[in-house]
Each structure stands twice: as C-alpha cells, then as structure tokens.
C-alpha cells in the first residue's frame, strides 16, 4: 500500500477521533454555526501562514484560534445576536481570504483543495500537526468533560457549584478551532462540519449517556473515514465527499434503529394528580 494512502488514513482517523467528543458538544450546545464560521476563515489562514512564512496548516490553526477567542470576547458584549455575529465573522473572513489570496500573486492556492479537502495530499508534516492537535484536543476534552457537561446542562447552576464557566467555554472553543483546522485538510472547509456533527448525530440514536455518545461518535467517524477512503481508492472518486457520504449512510441506517435506552419513564411510585 502506498505511503500517501497510509498518511491519509492516519490523518483521517486522527481527525475523526478528535471530532467525536467535540462534535457531541457542538450538537448539544447548538454551536454548529460557530464551527462553520471558523471553517470559512481557512483561506485567510492560508494567506496568514504564507505572509508569516510559517506552515500553511499552522496558519489555519492560528487564525481559527484567534477567531474563536475574538468570538468569545465579542459575544460577552451582547451587542448582536450570536448567529448574526457569527455570520459577520464567517463571511468577512471568507471574502478577506479570497481578496488577500488573489493579491498575493506569488501564492498559488488550490482552491478546490481548500473547499473540499485533499486528504491524499497529506504530508508527513501535516500528519504531525493533525495527530498532535488531535491528541491535545482529546486530552483537553477529557480534562474539561465534567465541567463542560455541567455548563451545557445549566451555566448558572454550574457557576454556583464552582465551575469556572468562562474558562471552560474558552477552552472548548479553542478545541473546536483545533478540530476544524485539522479537519479542513481532510474534507475541506465546506464539508468539515459534516465530519464533526454527522457521527455525533448518528451516535445519539444509540446512546443513553453522554460518554457513550462520544465514544460511538468516534467509532462512526473512524468507520466513515476508513470505508470512505477505501471506496474512493477503489472507484477512483473524490475522498472527502465519499467520507461524508459514508457518514451520512450510517446516519440514515441508525435512524431505522429503535430508540436507545429508557427514553420515556413511566412513573411508578409518584403520581402527579
């Protein structure tokens, strides 16, 4: 088997593993649009990386992190509804990215690669960044898990119980930024959110606890990457879109599954009337 395929496999699995738990919280906290807004900044990140003379993937990571922090600071001002604020950030960074990239005539950008990913072009250096960030994200999620779950259920209750709410929120948006940035290489800025949320949405059907949902999301994500990649090799079709289509097939299949766990509870001892 060729090296490029193994690198693609390793990179894709790395992203899927980190995206599992992060994706669950994106779904629970209704932050899908936040992730999408970060993804829109990819081109600007590339330009930033080029201007600073650093690795272009590092440029994307840096800009995503910057935007995530900016978003948390702006959101605290309560000037605009969150989705409006995100809409402004998303499209301004996309437009600015296109302008700056066109302006830098020495920078040649494979636009399709950034839009839809180019997993087969993952280099050794990309792989180090992907796996490194994936591990940092996983460690961060493990560390923040309880606090994050607590503020997702109710921020005020969490605050009274001693959870540093702002710090935990900031930690989480940084991890979202990390996953979005590394996922861009695999499925591209237009599809990265699907790789983050479809496995989580698939897992919901089968899970009765948050932890199981996160583990199942990882399983579905990894399966989608592996099956999608092999299918793309076999039929010579684009890899990123095939990975997403595979994830969607899993989602469709699990919708046929009967609902997990005791979703409804028949009160036995207590009556309300």
């Amino acid at each position, binding site marked *: 088997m060729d090296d490029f395929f193994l690198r693609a496999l390793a990179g894709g699995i790395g992203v899927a593993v980190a995206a599992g738990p992060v994706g669950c919280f994106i*779904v*629970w906290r*209704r932050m899908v649009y936040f992730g999408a807004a970060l993804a829109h900044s990819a081109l600007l990140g590339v330009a930033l990386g080029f201007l600073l003379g650093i690795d272009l993937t590092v440029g994307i990571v840096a800009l995503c992190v910057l935007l995530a922090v900016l978003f948390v600071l702006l959101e605290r001002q309560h000037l605009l509804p969150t989705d409006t604020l995100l809409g402004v950030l998303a499209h301004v960074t996309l437009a600015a990215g296109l302008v700056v990239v066109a302006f830098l005539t020495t920078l040649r950008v494979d636009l399709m690669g950034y839009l839809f990913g180019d997993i087969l072009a993952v280099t050794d250096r990309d792989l180090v960044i992907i796996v490194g960030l994936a591990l940092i994200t996983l460690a961060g999620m493990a560390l923040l898990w*309880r606090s994050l*779950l*607590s503020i*997702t*259920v*109710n921020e*005020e*209750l*969490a*605050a*009274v*119980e001693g959870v540093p709410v702002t710090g935990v929120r900031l930690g989480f948006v940084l991890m979202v930024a990390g996953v979005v940035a590394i996922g861009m290489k695999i499925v591209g800025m237009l599809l990265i959110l699907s790789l983050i949320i479809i496995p989580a*949405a698939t897992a*919901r059907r089968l*899970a*009765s*606890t*948050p932890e*199981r*949902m996160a583990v199942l999301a990882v399983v579905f994500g990894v399966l989608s990457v592996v099956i999608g990649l092999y299918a793309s090799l076999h039929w010579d079709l684009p890899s990123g879109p095939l990975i997403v289509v595979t994830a969607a097939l899993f989602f469709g299949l699990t919708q046929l599954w009967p609902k*997990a*766990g*005791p*979703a*409804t*509870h028949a*009160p*036995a*001892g*207590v009556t*309300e*009337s």
Partner: protein
Amino acid sequence: MTPPHSTAVDDCLIEARQLCVSFRGRNVLDHIDMQVQRGEIVTLIGLNGAGKSTLVRALLGLITPASGSVVRRPGLRIGYSPQHLHLDATLPLTVAGFLNLGARTSQARLHALLAEVGVEDVLESQIAGISGGEFHRVLLARALLRKPDLLVLDEPLAGVDVAGQSELYRLIADIRDRYACGVLMVSHDLHVVMAATDRVICINHHVCCTGHPESVTQSPEFVALFGRHVAEGLAVYTHRHDHQHDVAGAPVPLEEEPLEEENG
C-alpha cells in the same frame, strides 16, 4: 408573632447590605437589606419583574452589584435549584448522570437522596423522560447533594399542580429540619408560601415589607402591591397603607382615598 425558628437569630448565613443592581442604567434592585438565618425558610415574593430572581442571582454571585455588598458566612455551601433548566433533547443524560455533575458520589447515596425527596425510581431514567414534578425533586436532590448550609430555590413550584405544591413545601420544610440549613425561596404563589414560610420578604425593586407571613399580609405595602382582594384572601384584616408604587415600582405618596379598615 414569633417565627418558629427564632432560636437561630444570630446564625446569619448570607446577607445583602444596601445592595443595588442595575441593568442598562435602570435600577432593578434599590438598596436591598436582607438576610437568611440558619434554620429559617425565607420566601421572596413580588410581582413579575420586581427583581426577585435578580436578587437571588446577586446573592449567588452570578451578577455583580452596582453598589452595596453580599456577605456570606465563610465557607458557606450553597445548594441551588434554578428557575429554568432546559435540557436539549440531543443530550442523553440519566438522572444519575445529572446528579453526578453536582458532586461525585456513590450510587447508594444517590439512591438514598432520591428516596429522601420521594423519587427513588427515576435514578436510571433519562432525565428528558421524567415528569415536571419529578424533575423539581431531582433538582432538589442535586442541591442537597452538596450538603448545603443554604438552599436557594428559584420558583421550585413552577409547573407543579396545587396538591403537589403543598407536598413539595412540606418536603422543603422537612429538609430544613433534617439538614438544619437555611432556605431562600422565590415564589409567586402566595397561598402556599404563606402557609410554609417563616419569613416573607416582599420585593418591588426595594424591600417593600418583610416579616412573618401573617403580619406581612396585613401590611399596607403588601396590600398596595398585590391589591386588596389578594390580601383579604390571605389575611384577617388590612390596614391603611401610606404609599403606593408608580409603573417603575418606585414608592410614591398616596393619591387616592385611604382604604377603609375592614374586618374579614
């Protein structure tokens, strides 16, 4: 009128001193002085938008006062049950998992705690699947998990029917006795409040009146705020009042004819 738990008068758990809170330049709380003693059930009453929840959130340290201060007894443990707790349906969470977020503890203790609040069967149920009444009790259990010195319950009866309400109030009174804690409650259901509270603080941006339920319902401020019909339904008789409130809730001198004294 002596409150039943007047022995604990010196054991102050939390106190607001000249507390002012404003949102966008509007004074929501205006020089509030109040305190909760150990062993005492204090209920905040007042109309919608009077600042009851704001006072609770300021006492909990969730919002910063514009001036004045909140003094807590050092090392005070607070168990809090918020007014609204919306759980997203995409989050699979059992009652046990929900309680564990408050404090890590053994399954046996969780079971004992749920039995204490009367819902021992729901431990492994999905929290989205239990009824509103059960959910209030689960919230109470989570607050108790921390062995609180002070229980803060924001509208613990919202969505519970009348029979369930008095039962829940009895439960809260039991808990106060068992844990020897103070209880601060927000409620707008006056009838049940009056029966189960040691002290009522009536809030209308400022402290309108305060005291034992019976004396408060007789106070002119209370009558002015809630109207004579409500007051007469709750109290034996009403006095004249010396001020009323404008739309913003500020006390203004009385314009109309004083109310007659009535025997009811």
